[in-house]
């Protein structure tokens, strides 16, 4: 049987799976220390041409340091960085074929929008006509033709963000570095801009590297995500793989919401592993392959939307199920979140999409319900 795809397939672009694709950006055992603090710890990473790659992690995880080392604003304490085959050691920022969009935008306040965008092109000593044409093209791309003569302080936050973007792609760099590019925008605008960024990246055919602490943002825009924690990369995978098959409790917990149940491996029978959680009556059957042995302590991880909620016990007496009492309900409009108490020290979260406007028999506080899930709904985590 062919491997079932996980999640939506964005496009036919998976150079990381081919094994012989040429790496475009390569971090080789890179370490960066600031005094006693190790920001990036012996980290290796490969990014491919035309990829939209996201570095995701909490504050202080080293993601910004990684980007600043690629941009040339910090030198690694150890290790090497290659860009398109070139070792970047000792190359100053103004000679690197990478452009950065700064978190603060860093627009030159004394220059108009068009002069900001032209700045990088002027450094390359391009002919005047060409610079003008390119600036016009960029203004059109970010829909700011009418604001060319304005100064940055006369623009809104969203417009400033566009100027910063236009300025950083005007030179058509090999890599565009985006440092929390949408952090200052409100939610609506941020969502719109995320999709625009994706379109832009496909259109320009550049390699984009984005740094963000916002998992939704990373999952929306990126081909692959590296989840970072304390200077190390915990998992590198596509958004869907990160979400559906996290490799650790850290990743599972960091991305989205998850139920984690500590359990022991009771038996392994072919593809199905059965787990026994001390506080659940029934065993949990999991079809996800695992290298855990019988008797090992593991964690069963299941996303709240994969737990079904109902008043009636499942027909099949051996299916994954647990009886529980509704403890808390959160109504979010599109979904409702139920906290169900399955045991004294085990509250499971279940999200139910509100697919109809009215409900025949609404679930309420203190109702006794049945939670159930499929064998392939959850994964076994060993760390």
């Amino acid at each position, binding site marked *: 049987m062919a491997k079932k795809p996980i999640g939506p397939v964005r496009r036919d672009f998976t150079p990381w799976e081919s094994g012989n694709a040429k790496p475009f950006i390569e971090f080789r055992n890179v370490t960066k220390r600031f005094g006693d603090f190790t920001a990036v710890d012996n980290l290796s990473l490969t990014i491919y041409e035309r990829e939209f790659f996201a570095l995701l992690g909490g504050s202080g995880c080293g993601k910004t340091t990684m980007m600043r080392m690629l941009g040339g604003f910090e030198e690694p304490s150890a290790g090497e960085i290659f860009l398109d085959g070139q070792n970047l050691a000792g190359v100053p920022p103004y000679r690197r074929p990478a*452009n950065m969009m700064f978190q603060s935008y*860093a627009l030159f306040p004394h220059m108009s929008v068009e002069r900001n965008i032209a700045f990088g092109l002027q*450094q390359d000593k391009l002919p005047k006509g060409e610079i003008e044409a390119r600036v016009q093209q960029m203004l059109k791309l970010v829909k700011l033709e009418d604001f060319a003569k304005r100064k940055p302080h006369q623009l809104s936050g969203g417009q400033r963000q566009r100027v910063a973007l236009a*300025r950083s792609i005007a030179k058509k760099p090999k890599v565009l570095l985006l440092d929390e590019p949408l952090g200052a925008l409100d939610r609506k605008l941020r969502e719109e801009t995320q999709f625009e960024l994706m379109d832009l990246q496909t259109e320009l055919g550049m390699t984009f590297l984005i740094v963000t602490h916002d998992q939704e943002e990373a999952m929306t825009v990126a081909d692959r995500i590296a989840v970072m924690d304390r200077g190390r990369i915990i998992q590198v995978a596509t958004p869907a793989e990160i979400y559906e098959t996290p490799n650790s409790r850290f990743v599972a917990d960091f991305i989205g919401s998850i139920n984690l149940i500590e359990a022991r491996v009771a038996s392994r029978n072919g593809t199905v592993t059965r787990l026994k959680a001390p506080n659940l009556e029934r065993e949990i059957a999991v079809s996800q392959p695992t290298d855990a042995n019988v008797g090992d302590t593991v964690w069963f991880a299941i996303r709240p939307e994969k737990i079904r909620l109902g008043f009636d016990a499942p027909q099949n007496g051996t299916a994954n199920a647990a009886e529980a009492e509704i403890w808390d309900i959160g109504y979010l409009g599109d979904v409702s979140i139920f906290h169900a108490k399955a045991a004294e020290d085990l509250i499971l979260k279940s999200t139910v999409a509100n697919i109809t406007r009215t409900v025949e028999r609404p679930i309420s506080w203190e109702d006794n319900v049945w939670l159930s899930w499929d064998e392939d709904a959850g994964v076994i985590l060993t760390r």
Partner: protein
Amino acid sequence: MVDTAAPGADVEAAPALKRKRSLGGWLLIAIPYAWLLFFFLAPFFIVFKISLSEIAVAIPPYLPTFDLAEGWQGLRENFAAFSFENYIWLTQDALYWKSYLSSVWIAATSTAITLVIGYPLAYGMARAPAAWRPTLLMLVILPFWTSFLIRVYAWIGILKNEGLLNQALLSIGVIDEPLTILNTNAAVYIGIVYSYLPFLVLPLYATLEKLDESLLEAASDLGCPPWKAFWKITVPLSLPGVIAGCFLVFIPAVGEFVIPDLLGGSETLMIGKTLWSEFFANRDWPVSSAVAVILLLILVVPIVLFQNQQQRASEKDA
């Protein structure tokens, strides 16, 4: 709240839209105005009045003088005696316009030299590690703890023929005979640059310290080497500080008296000195008053420009 009440129905309860200034508020703003009135405007009118008078051998040494005992008639005669003769005199003797011109020239040159020395100083301070900055700032302000007059006197000891500077240069063999610096224009430049350097460094430092370092990173990122980024980013953005600092040096330097008097020579022509000799040596109060009024008018132009620039800068910040 939607105000639908009939007019007058809710007058006392509703907070007044145009808040009336309380008595305390009026008093508060009255104090600076009273200060300006009594210590600036009134003296100016007295000086202006004297400048329209005529020199006389009397106490005070000019005519006419007001005498309230003479009543209304006397006052009118007084006004009739006023004339602009002293101002016309200022245009007739070359000494005066030469003094004005020389003052402006010396002040402008000193300002330029102060800027050349002060900019790197302020830049270095702003780029120094944050922990050092308060100390560096302290060092710039430290000279103010000693009297200005004493510091200028100290320069006599340094610059005179057998002074510290000449002795040092002679002992290391750079020169064979002492340089004559004291009592020349060079000494005046040194004195002005030394005395007014902090006035340029402080506003400039304040502007440079605020400069967002990510702008320089962005310039570098876009292919601009650091020395070029300095001219394209740092210098234009520090211009408000440069202008403020230059005005703070130029305006007082034009009317400077102590420095040219103590350090300058007989050929040093500055309006402050001319005014002094007119007042104390010639005892010609009316002409020296006219000199002062014209000096004020000359300085009003840069002062207004300075005010304008400050206002624009603060509007931009807001």
